[in-house]
Each structure stands twice: as C-alpha cells, then as structure tokens.
C-alpha cells in the first residue's frame, strides 16, 4: 500500500524475496507452529514523541489452534496483528523490529518483519487473512459482494472470472449464507450485519490461509449473531485446520473459542496460559481483575456486592510508569520491588507464563 521511496532498501532485502524452504521433517517440533513471533516491537513516531505500542512480544500459534489476545483498548493487541502483516503506517512513522515467521500451507515460510511490500502482498490474503471488527464499513459500498470475494481469488490464485464466481458461491455457502448465487449480486447495504461479517469471513478464507486473524469480529454484532459467528469460525477452523488469532476484550467469547489465551497490557504480554488454566488459576493481578470484572448472575448474591472494576486507566503509552506498567493500578503493588524494573515473563507452570514479581505471594489473594 505504501510508496517505497528507497529502492535501495528493497535491493538489500532481496534475499527475502524467495520463501525459505523448510522441510517439515527437519523442523521437528517447530513444524506444527504456523506462526512464530520473537521479540516483536512496534513503535510509532508521533508529535508527542515515540510511542511503543508493542514491546517484546513473543508467541507462537500451532496449526488448528486458536490463540486469544485479550486486553483493554490500547493494550496493543490490534497493533500486534496489524504490525505482523505490515498494515501499520510506513517506515518513518512506524518502526517494527523483531521477527515473525509464518508458514504457508505449502510448507513455504515467510519472514514478516522487514519484508518488501511485493512479498507481503502475496502473504496478505493468501497466507494470512484478517477479519475486522466493523462489517458495516469493511466492505466497499460500490462493489457487489461477489466482486469483492472474487477479487481476492483473482489476485492470489489467478482464477478466471467464471471460476472465481463459482468458488465465491461455494464460499458463501460454506459460511452459511443461503441462496449464495443470488447473494453474490447483492451490494453490502442490502445485507444485515451478521451476513456482512459472514461475507468478510468468506473473503478471508477464500484462499485458504494458514493463519486467520480475527480482530474483534463479533463486537459490532448482537449477541445471537455473535454466537453464530463464533460457531462458524470454529467450524471453519476444524474443517481447514487453520491457525487463528482471536483478538477481543470479551472474555465470554474467549472461553468459547480459544485454546490458549495471551493477556496484553500496555503493549506487553502479562500472562499467557491454556484457556482453562487462565480462567481457573489466573496468576497476574491484571488477568484476575479482568476475569473478576465480568458480570455474573450468581456470584453477587442479591446484588449486594457492586461489580468489580479495575481502578484507574491504561497508562499513557508515551509515558509509562517505571517498573511494572500495571503497578499504579495494582492492589498488590509493593514500592521498591514492583517499580524497580520491568518484571520478566516467568514460568509459573509449564506453558503458563506470567509477568509479575509477586505472583507466588499473591496466589490465594484476590
């Protein structure tokens, strides 16, 4: 999407043009990982100074697995995913460092950080797709639904118009839209919100990506439709074994769809665990707060106890507090320890990472 003023940069990156071949046997345990992100940093240059939106984020997603990315607004969850696909603003305004390795279905691996646009265009929509939050505005109002689905097929698979139309109808059928042939000729404004989101999903899975990023896909929909969309995503995932990153701040949907959960706060991962583990044994005070602040019908008997809310607000991304960024809002804050240095991600249990110096002590407390 962006103009690359510096052709030299492209020449320097020339060796990245061709996908690195990774025979599955050699890679061993790694082979199952569709996406491997190491030390990803995303920083924006703004008038108010440099804003580090994502800091040292490392994670991986396996084939057929759903990783939920949870956090408040501005915790960096969307930027992480936009950054991975190079959809953030161009170079002088935004810098991305670290590495991210994405494996396509054919076994080719792509490095996503610092890769030239030409390669990234092939990756986007072909190897990794995104579904956005707003189905109302994510479809182009002047083209029919069919034309928009076909576009992706024709860009990536070079299909003929006729073949693309047939495939588009198939896709609409797959995402549960009845009478797909007729729907192809509809304009977005003729469809309901749920239908539009289904169309977005159809566009995203058109080229059978190995990774699907769903950025709060159900936020703009009403609850019954939300459930249907979640079911659809689960169905598609089990059919195609694609990996999925599900970004949300709705813990209810997380419990529904995720295999693993990564909690982000102020651009950092603060906790990462298996979904059951996280809901039954959250370790980080922030995760505990999040789970605690979900309204429940039964626990607040007779509604005597008010709904729990985490005090304070997300810190200004341009001026983070020293040490633990959650410190100022934390009920277990200990001066001298919590504000001394940024806590490291520790293994609380195998596969359960937590970024808190006091996690062993606050085990039982709320």
């Amino acid at each position, binding site marked *: 999407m962006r103009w690359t003023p510096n052709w030299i940069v492209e020449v320097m990156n020339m060796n990245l043009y061709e996908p690195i071949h990774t025979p599955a046997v050699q890679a061993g345990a790694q082979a199952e990982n569709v996406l491997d992100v190491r030390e990803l940093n995303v920083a924006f240059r703004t008038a108010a100074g440099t804003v580090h939106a994502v800091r040292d984020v490392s994670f991986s997603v396996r084939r057929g697995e759903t990783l939920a990315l949870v956090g408040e607004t501005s915790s960096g969850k969307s930027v992480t995913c936009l950054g991975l696909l190079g959809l953030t603003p161009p170079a002088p305004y935004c810098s991305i460092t670290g590495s991210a390795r994405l494996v396509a279905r054919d076994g080719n691996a792509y490095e996503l950080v610092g890769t030239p646009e030409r390669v990234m265009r092939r990756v986007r929509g072909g190897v990794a797709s995104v579904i956005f939050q707003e189905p109302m505005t994510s479809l182009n109002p*002047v083209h029919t639904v069919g034309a928009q689905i076909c576009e992706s097929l024709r*860009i990536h698979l070079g299909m003929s118009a006729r073949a693309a139309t047939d495939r588009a109808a198939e896709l609409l059928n797959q995402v549960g839209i009845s009478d797909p042939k007729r729907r192809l000729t509809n304009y977005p404004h003729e469809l309901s919100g749920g239908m539009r989101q289904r169309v977005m999903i159809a566009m995203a899975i058109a080229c059978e990506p190995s990774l699907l990023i769903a950025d709060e896909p159900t936020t703009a929909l009403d609850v019954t439709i939300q459930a249907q969309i979640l079911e659809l995503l689960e169905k598609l995932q089990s059919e195609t074994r694609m990996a999925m990153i599900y970004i949300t701040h709705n813990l209810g949907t997380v419990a529904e769809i995720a295999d693993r959960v990564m909690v982000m706060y102020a651009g950092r991962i603060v906790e990462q665990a298996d979904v059951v583990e996280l809901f039954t044994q959250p370790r980080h005070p922030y995760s505990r707060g999040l789970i605690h602040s979900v309204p429940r019908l039964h626990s607040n008997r007779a509604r005597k106890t008010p709904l729990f809310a985490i005090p304070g607000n997300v810190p200004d991304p341009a001026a983070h507090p020293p040490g633990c960024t959650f410190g100022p809002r934390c009920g277990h804050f200990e001066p001298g320890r919590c504000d001394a240095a940024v806590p490291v991600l520790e293994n609380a249990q195998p596969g359960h990472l937590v970024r808190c110096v006091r996690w062993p002590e606050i085990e039982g407390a709320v």
Partner: protein
Amino acid sequence: MSIAHTASLAPPRRALAGRFPALSRFLRHRPALLGLGIVLIMTLASFVGPWLIPFNATDTDIRARLTEPFVGSHVLGTDPLGRDILARLMYAGRISLSVGFAATALSVVVGVLVGLVAGFYRGAIGAALMRFVDAMLCFPTIFLLLAVAALIEPSVASIVVLIALASWMEVARVVEGQIRSLRERDFALAAESLGASDSRIMFRELLPNAVAPIVVAATLNIAHAILAESYISFLGFGIQPPTPSWGNMLENAQSYLTNAPWLAIVPGLAITLTVTSFNFIGDGLRDALDAKLDR
C-alpha cells in the same frame, strides 16, 4: 380487473425511484431538468441540425448579406458575407460543444490522476502535487490562456489541450480530498489486508466511491471550458475563421453591433444558455448526489 391493472403498473416506477434515490432527487430539481433539456436540444441541433437546413455554414451569398432574422428563408438572418447564421450557429455549436466536452474529459483525466496520487500517498508527493495545483490556480486563467495561445498554432486540438491544462486543478482538489478521507475507511484497510496492490486500491476501491463529486466538478467544468473557448476565440487566438465557433462569431459581430445586432445576440444567447444550463445541471447533480440528504 382494472385495480389489478393499475397495481401492476405502479410498482416499477416506485422501485426505480427507490433504487436510485439520487435519480429521483435529480428529477425533482427543476432548473437542472430545464438545463438538461436545453443542453440536449443544443447538442442535437448542433450535430443533426446542419443536415436539416438548406444552407451551408460557409456558403456566401453577397446579395443576401446582412439579412435580418425572420425575413425570408434565412431564419436567423445572415452575416456580412451573406452566410446563414443558423447554419453557422449549428456548426459552431459542434466545435464549441466538442471543445467543451473534450477539454473537460482531458482535465478530468489529469485531475483524477493527480488527485488520486496526491490523496493516496500524501506525505512529500502529495504536498508537492497539491502545492503545484495551488500554484496553477494562482495564475489568472485568461491571461495564461492568451499568453500560451499567442505562442502556439491555434487549432481545435491545441485549444482543447490548452483549456484542459488551465482547468484540471479543480478536479484534482476534489479528488484529493475525497481520496484522503476514503483511504482511511475500513474497506481500504480490508482490501490491503487481502493483498490488493496500491493501484488496485486506488482505482478499484477508492475511485468508484468518489465518482459523485467528480461528476459534479466535471459538469461545471464543461461550462467553464465552453466559456473559455468562447473568449479565446472572441479575442482571436482560438478557433480560426472560416471555421465558426460561438466565440469567433461574436468577434465578427463587433463591427456591426449597431446596424446588425442579431449577429452578436444569437451566438451570445447560445453561449449564455449553454453555460447556464451546464451550471444548473451541475447544481442539480450536486444536490442529488449529496449523500448527506439521505442514504
């Protein structure tokens, strides 16, 4: 039976208006309809008319020179060389309208390209292009046109290019503004996330969304182009006699203004009517296509 009949007739009309609310709004805009009618008549008369009258635009008839209108067979009278004014008016209409349309087409192409690139890439490229547009707008168009027209060989093609070069800036500004806001819309990001290239996003995703203001700007531009052609020709730098254009017909009329005023009134009226009509159509389109009203 008769009820069923009326019922079967009614829906299509409502469906048409319902499907194209902009069309029904345009049809309710009286001046625009009037303008459209006049333009259609003018165009038809210019391109078909010359075959329907017994006179040629270049045939002279010294015995019938300076005949008054509505006298004899020359409906709008004759000029100092005895040429039929109606025939000349129609033939001049071909030239003037063609120049207007062609110059507008060219300036829309240039304006859209410049506006698209400037609005899409913003930054240094966008700033440079738009400052160039501003600089072009700073020139007083008439002097620019006359200065350049004095240097080049006047012909229909060169006049078209000249007028286009002096009038593409308005379209560029309109397009730049539209694209700037459209590219921030979710569907632009969605298209990018599906692997669409820059040019694909620009031309397929964004440009069709900006058609309405472009159409309006182009319509008003036709009026300006016709006017521009008229005054270049009037001042003698434009379409050269014996080829008639509304502008050089006016020029010829200058010396006979007191004893043969119809020589000036007829082409003057043609210019006024056409330009006003295009302006009305432009206004009507603007009102009709304005998304703020409904949709």
